[in-house]
């Protein structure tokens, strides 16, 4: 597999802030991979993905996206490769209606109008929002707005999709509908590389790999199960413990058998059932 994103030694200071937001961070994301970035508030997750998209001018280090080295000259080519969905549904809705918003990126790219109409329609169908194409944003729920944002990105057909806490302001139903779109995208033929930033461990567990960010550095990376199994790591990076770990501890307090290492939810179910059968 080829590397889709390569970050080397990236360092960034916000103006007039002593602490660097990114501190010599290096990492790689493979083509077609789904990576989740986790870490406590202020650990540098958003700054990292913004730097990769050329949205902050980093002072030190190197970013390569789809083989293009990020420089002031190449920044618009890099951005063509990446589609970003941000946290606040209201602050990224540019168009006056759903269809206008989906078209915004296409307009910027200078796509001819007849092609644009097809792409907008197709993208809206993919996120299940075709029936709302004339709606103004003030008459949409947060989840619907986020799906429109996703449609705007799908229409551009980027090789990478970045979700920066795209579901964190939504209700459970809204979250579900957005995650369903991502799952569907992953199953498509040309599945894009996905980077999702999230505080929701269930959502993170769906990724193939986790990157734990702390104080602007990559503290660890690995399969979700590997990361969740490392209690010391979770504690030191301010992450919550997964449900199965907490359940195992409660079982131990009850004096009952319990697994002595991390199990995913389904493994835990099987383990419990096997133990039950030995009674």
């Amino acid at each position: 597999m080829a590397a889709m994103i390569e970050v080397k030694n990236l360092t960034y200071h916000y103006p007039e802030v002593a602490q660097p937001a990114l501190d010599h961070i290096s990492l790689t994301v493979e083509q077609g991979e789904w990576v989740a970035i986790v870490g406590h508030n202020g650990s540098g997750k958003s700054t990292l993905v913004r730097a990769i998209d050329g949205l902050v001018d980093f002072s030190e280090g190197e970013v390569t996206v789809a083989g293009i080295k990020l420089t002031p000259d190449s920044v618009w080519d890099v951005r063509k490769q990446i589609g970003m969905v941000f946290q606040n549904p209201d602050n990224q809705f540019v168009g006056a209606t759903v269809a206008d918003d989906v078209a915004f990126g296409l307009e910027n790219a200078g796509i001819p109008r007849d092609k644009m109409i097809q792409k907008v329609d197709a993208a809206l169908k993919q996120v299940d929002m075709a029936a709302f194409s004339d709606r103004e944003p003030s008459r949409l729920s947060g989840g619907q707005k986020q799906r429109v944002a996703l449609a705007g990105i799908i229409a551009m057909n980027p090789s990478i999709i970045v979700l920066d806490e795209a579901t964190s302001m939504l209700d459970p139903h809204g979250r579900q509908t957005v995650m369903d779109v991502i799952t569907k995208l992953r199953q498509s033929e040309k599945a894009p590389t996905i980077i999702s930033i999230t505080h929701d461990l269930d959502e993170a567990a769906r990724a193939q790999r986790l990157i734990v960010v702390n104080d602007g550095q990559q503290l660890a990376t690995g399969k979700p199960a590997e990361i969740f199994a490392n209690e010391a790591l979770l504690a030191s990076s301010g992450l919550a413990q997964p449900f199965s770990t907490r359940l195992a501890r409660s079982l131990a307090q009850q004096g009952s058998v319990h697994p002595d290492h991390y199990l995913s939810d389904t493994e835990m179910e099987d383990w419990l059932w096997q133990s039950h059968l030995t009674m």
Partner: protein
Amino acid sequence: MAITFDHVNFTYQPNSPFAATGLKDVNLTLPDGSFTAIIGHTGSGKSTLVQHLNGLLKPTSGQVQVDDFTLTSTTSNRHLKDLHQHVGMVFQFPENQLFDQTVVKDIAFGPLNFGFDENTAHDMAVQAAKTVGLPDNVLERSPFELSGGQMRRVAIAGVLASQPRVLVLDEPTAGLDPLGREHMMQMFEQLHEEQQLTVVLVTHQMDDVADYADQAVVMGHGEVLKAGAPQTIFNDPQWVYDQQLDFPTATKFAFQLQQKGFSFNQLPLTEQQLADQLADQLPAMDGKGR
């Protein structure tokens, strides 16, 4: 004393093309010292409901009783100040309301408005800052220089400083990381236990409903669809699903175990309840059955 809603209706912008129903015939009792969770899909009327608790909205018809205060469509705004102090209200993303030059001044803003003198207000502010766990060295800094989590705490302290007896929280932990969330919820729990505050929590987090609330109210299209102990609400899975609601993590896990063959005589809502019931169906730690 308690909080009661008696046939409360509310319409936004009545007599205009924008008229929208906010509440429909709401009848509800929140006992003194209770911890109530308000849940429901977006636009179901949760925020509209809780804004009636301190008179920010007045019923179009019907009556709200909050301890000694009575609120009807004709209640004059002049009589609401005491109610505002009695019922503290933490809005969604409350850090958006900060404005003063220093943290301590911003926290003291409420007490000053409610007629306390400068010194008393300052003391109340310092006290509230301590309650929410703000370090002393931030008190004289500008609230806009703080991290998101700290700004949230300043805003909450700004509500607690006026020493309300009822605390209304509209999704207070949205956007915080899991540990920040947990600390904040434990802080509210502590206020509830130690000062017997009546707490009303609007939330999309079913784990919070399971862990902290003793009563849950399910809203839908401006109506109260169901009210009762969390246990009774979640006991009807199909209904919960139809309301586009989620389940607590432990409950979802229990459903999976049920499919495997485990049985639960009471639906577990918390990981503790789940462990309790599982322990009976598992061998003890020494390897022998019980």
